[in-house]
């Protein structure tokens, strides 16, 4: 459509003199919004009390709609939703994140980031609006369809578009660049959680559903406007562009490829699947701590850690998660991706094993330090993986390859909580005291990280048979002139 031609890739090629430091804020604007997903749990309790407060009758025009026969027919949810039921909304959103990133990654690389970011904004905000209608009429399938499916698609598109763009703008420091964007995903939850609570206070009593409906609509509108800043600010580098002083092909790390690998070929390499497993175990292990942080701290230190203190502890972990994204991925530019992941997978098991030990030693400080470090590595794993992919597969289709790799996140998002829940139930059945129930979980997670370490050690440069025939030097655009390939260490 001509009216949407401003979204086309050729309209966003940076003109000479464009400052590349404008691109990270564009990326952050998207990630700060979609990072809201991590704060969805603030809606858990209000969403379980919608029917109980039904006497707060609709007061706006939607009331008229509710009087129609069609809506009455669909308005058949006599009981409140349970917390596990609501948990499916977030899980479905994460599954759709991975699936949409995998499905639309190649499209994104073709049409450019502006169009993909615009589509992300429409889907993510649209998910809130559809979800609001679902909450209003207490239709769980509509909430799933809105926030879970539509919002999840927005998450996937919004997650990979800025990352692949930044990798192309910062070939000299890809870890730092992707860390900046993905740090925004962690930071987005920090903004969304208190903002949502304040909005629910504002809308409480004004609208049906403890203010959730009004909050969803408001968040959808705010996020759409904010994401438009990213949409209109983002640019792609012109063919031939290179940052000042950067000479491609001089990296000493032999894992940094000088060749591009297409998404269809990357899929067939062992390196892709090794990284897939590494992301899977890192996320699964992180979820084990993140999802249990509050009850675990109270169970390991009864009488010393109250529910209020545990809430503060979860806040501290959010900060660690965000900080780790930037710190670890920036560090990876200096020590290499393989060494960074090896740090996660060797230090990590020791920290997981130390958690039960901290409970037995009654050392709250040790427990806090372990969890904080684990969360930095959880975030760091997300932020470092795009740069690892770029090292192995080049920049040409890194967005599409990253998208496919994110299916590991989706898998962990479903399997991780299920595994933790199963381990907990198994131990309860066998009469294991509450405070000791975390031991086995942490030992299993430590074991998973050792598997990750083995995978990381197995990562070798991609076989030449997978390289694109017209492969340019890493960090350069497909059509630019490049210096001849040089071999390195």
């Amino acid at each position: 459509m001509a009216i949407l031609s401003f979204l086309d890739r050729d309209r966003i090629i940076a003109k000479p003199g464009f400052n590349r430091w404008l691109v990270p804020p564009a990326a952050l604007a998207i990630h700060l919004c979609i990072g809201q997903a991590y704060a969805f749990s603030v809606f858990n309790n209000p969403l379980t009390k919608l029917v109980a407060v039904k006497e707060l009758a609709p007061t706006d025009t939607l009331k008229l709609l509710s009087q129609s026969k069609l809506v009455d027919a669909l308005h058949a949810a006599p009981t409140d939703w349970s917390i596990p039921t609501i948990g499916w909304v977030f899980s479905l959103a994460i599954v759709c994140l991975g699936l949409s990133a995998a499905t639309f990654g190649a499209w994104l690389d073709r049409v450019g980031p502006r169009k993909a970011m615009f589509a992300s904004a429409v889907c993510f905000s649209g998910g809130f609006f559809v979800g609001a209608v679902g909450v209003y009429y207490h239709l769980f399938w509509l909430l799933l369809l809105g926030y879970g499916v539509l919002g999840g698609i927005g998450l996937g598109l919004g997650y990979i578009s800025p990352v692949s763009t930044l990798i192309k703008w910062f070939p000299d420091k890809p870890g730092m660049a992707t860390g900046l964007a993905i740090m925004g995903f962690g930071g987005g939850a920090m903004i969304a959680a208190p903002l949502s609570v304040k909005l629910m206070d504002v809308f409480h009593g004004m609208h049906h559903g403890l203010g959730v409906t009004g909050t969803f609509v408001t968040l959808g509108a705010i996020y759409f406007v904010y994401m438009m800043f990213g949409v209109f600010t983002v640019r792609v580098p012109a063919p031939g562009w290179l940052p000042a002083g950067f000479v491609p092909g001089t990296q000493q790390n032999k894992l940094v490829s000088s060749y591009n690998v297409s998404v269809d070929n990357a899929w067939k390499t062992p390196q892709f699947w090794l990284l897939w497993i590494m992301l899977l175990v890192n996320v699964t292990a992180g979820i084990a701590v993140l999802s249990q942080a509050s009850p675990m701290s109270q169970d390991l230190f009864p009488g010393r850690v109250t529910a209020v203190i545990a809430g503060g502890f979860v806040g501290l972990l959010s900060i660690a998660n965000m900080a780790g994204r930037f710190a670890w991925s920036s560090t990876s530019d200096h020590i290499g991706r393989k060494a960074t992941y090896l740090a996660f997978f060797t230090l990590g098991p020791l920290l997981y094993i130390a958690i039960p030990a901290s409970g037995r030693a009654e050392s709250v400080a040790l427990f806090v330090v372990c969890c904080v470090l684990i969360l930095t590595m959880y975030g760091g794993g997300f932020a470092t993986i795009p740069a690892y992919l770029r090292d192995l597969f080049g920049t040409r289709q890194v967005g599409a390859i990253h998208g496919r790799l994110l299916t590991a996140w989706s898998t962990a998002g479903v399997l991780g909580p299920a595994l933790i829940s199963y381990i907990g139930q198994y131990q309860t059945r066998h009469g294991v005291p509450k405070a000791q129930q975390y031991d086995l979980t942490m030992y299993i997670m430590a074991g998973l990280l050792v598997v990750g370490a083995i995978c990381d050690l197995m990562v070798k440069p991609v076989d030449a048979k997978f390289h694109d025939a017209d492969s340019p030097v890493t960090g350069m655009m497909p059509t630019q002139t490049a210096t001849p390939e040089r071999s390195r260490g």
Partner: protein
Amino acid sequence: MADDVRSQRRVSSSSSAAENSSKGLVMLAWTFVLVPLAWGFTQTLIKAAVMFR
């Protein structure tokens, strides 16, 4: 090959100048994203501070 290298140097030189261009716009863009992030960070820090009371 020498032409290619000279061409690259020209591109690098122009991008060096670009790094210093539009500084006001860059500052504005960063402010736009960092202010809400700082607000969220502060809110979370206040929540986390309960641990140390």
